[in-house]
């Protein structure tokens, strides 16, 4: 999987690169408009992350450029602007997703995986993890063929874990993924704990293996070989 990260902040692009590399992606970084344009012209990628405010031009022009090329690349706009107009403009031009800064790397990774899955498997987006089987298009989970009945939040939580398997997820990142950013930190632990407890219980009931690990002081991790 080849990914192009177009982001002018060096530290941030390094963070994204490091995180995505450890997920097994092949990453390239462009830090200004011209080099990004050049790379888009020369190579093809599975996914491109585009920051809107770039030295030398707007990221939106790059989206336009990709669309003109009829490229099948997945495009995620990452922008510090966060204004509704930018979001609409980006999605109108044909980007696949829009992630306002600041975001969690785990959130980015989850969105990328969902996007790539959608693009590459053309509808057949099923995820298999040992005995577990997830069909995101139907929001259906089975364990050893038995259906696992989950609430919306439990399903979202499980999918988020699966998308970020073998990664430590902070409570803040989980809370933001599930409830947006109007959550109080003091409440987060209780919520997440309740949902995780229920999720674990349901998985074990269906004969699945509990792979949710508590990382003390920090958050949770879904381990899978």
């Amino acid at each position, binding site marked *: 999987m080849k990914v192009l990260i177009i982001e002018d*902040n060096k*530290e*941030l692009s390094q*963070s*994204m690169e*490091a*995180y995505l590399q*450890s997920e097994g992606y092949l990453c390239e970084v462009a830090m200004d408009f011209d080099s990004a344009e050049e790379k888009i012209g020369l190579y093809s990628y599975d996914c491109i992350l585009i920051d809107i405010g770039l030295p030398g031009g707007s990221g939106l022009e790059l989206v336009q450029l990709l669309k003109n090329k009829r490229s099948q690349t997945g495009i995620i706009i990452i922008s*510090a*602007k*966060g*204004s*509704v107009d930018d979001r609409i403009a980006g999605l109108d031009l044909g980007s696949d997703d829009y992630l306002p*800064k*600041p*975001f*969690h*790397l*785990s959130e980015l990774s989850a969105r990328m995986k969902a996007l790539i899955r959608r693009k590459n498997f053309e509808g057949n987006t099923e995820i298999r993890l040992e005995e577990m089987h997830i069909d995101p298009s139907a929001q259906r989970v089975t364990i050893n063929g038995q259906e696992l009945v989950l609430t919306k*939040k439990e399903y979202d939580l499980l999918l988020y874990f699966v998308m970020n398997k073998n*990664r*430590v997820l*902070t*409570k*803040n*990142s989980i809370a933001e993924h599930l*409830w*947006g*950013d*109007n*959550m*109080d*930190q*003091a*409440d987060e632990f*209780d*919520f997440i704990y*309740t949902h995780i407890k229920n999720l674990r219980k349901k998985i074990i009931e269906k004969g699945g293996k509990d792979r949710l690990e508590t*990382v*003390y*002081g*920090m*958050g949770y991790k879904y381990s899978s070989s």
Partner: protein
Amino acid sequence: MKLLQRATLYYAIVFLVLLMVLSGFFYGIIQFFFLKSLDESLLREKQKVDYSFSANKHPDQLVFDADEEVEIRPVPLQEKQADSYHTIYFKDEWDTTSSLQVESEPHRELVTFLEHKDTLYKLTIRKSMIESEDLLSSIVLIEILVLLILMGSFLLVNVWISKRLWKSFYEVLNKIKKYNLSSGDALVLEKSSIREFEDLNSVLQTMSARIQKDYRVQKQFTENASHELQTPLMVIRSKIELLIQRPNLSEDQMRLLQSIDNASQKLSHINKALLLLSRIENNQFSKNEKILLQPLISKIVENFTDRVHLKKLNLELNVAADAMLNLDPTLAEILFTNLIQNAVRHNFHGGSIKIVVRQGKAEFSNTGEVLDFDQQAVFERFRKSIKSDEGTGLGLAIVKEICNVGGITIDYKYESNQHFFILTW
């Protein structure tokens, strides 16, 4: 009190005092001249007597005016004194018209002495002053009347002139009253033909332009500052995320990282809220449209279901199907999210929330502790309870700002252990 009213009042007071002083003065002067002429006529009578003496006529033969009384009486020589005039009061014997109750009438009296053939005569001539007194009071009355008319018409003319002169001033005042700094429009004042007002206009225009500019720079600064903070904050958070993936981190190290993550999360919430505030102020959300409130509020409440359950809150939702609001959809969502979040956050465990929405009015009430700061400050930025560590302290400031741009009136009150936020539009 209005300027014109005050000026008129002052004028009226001055006029009244002046009127009193002047009428007294008039009375004095006129009386003085009357007495003078009366005294002169008395003197003439004396001369008449004197003349009759010199013509060897007996005074008894003299004829006097009807209103005069003359008394001639011989007195010892040594009683002679200089002529003297007095005003005395008594009742004429012949006056039968006036009743007994009537006070004596004023008379002018001349006491003089005449020598004739070695005999000294004391001559007392009296003349009634009643007619001259009547005349005097009529004259003074007419004077006062004329003065009153003069002053009254002066006041009226003054009011009329002032109104005309101050017209442009009141126009300017009206313009300034209606002037809205955040609208971004320059203050435009009409030209005045009066130099002082023209000066005032130009000073006001220069001043408002300067304030306008400062205001814009200030607003831009907040937006730019929050925007610039966004990236470094994101860097911190991304590095924490990378760091926690390292194996062999001790639990203690994890806790430290969690604290840093929490703090940076909070910082980015504050930053986002500030950015949002300045964006609302800068009118970046102006795509107003008619929004049906029932689906919107139900959706938001749905998002809070988890927290409502966790806190065991009793939520009562009553939204009229026809309730609509003309507002930017993004702002509408933020407005109700913040209000509901506020009601959930500052609530007791097992408390209650009540949301009643009708066309033109929405009422959010929730149980909660009384504010430990001034009620009026509830919408101020960074104003929050000492006990509450949650939230950015900007949620209600954002609510207020949205209400401002959306033309919604919002009121807060605390009654029977409940916080009430009432929106009317």
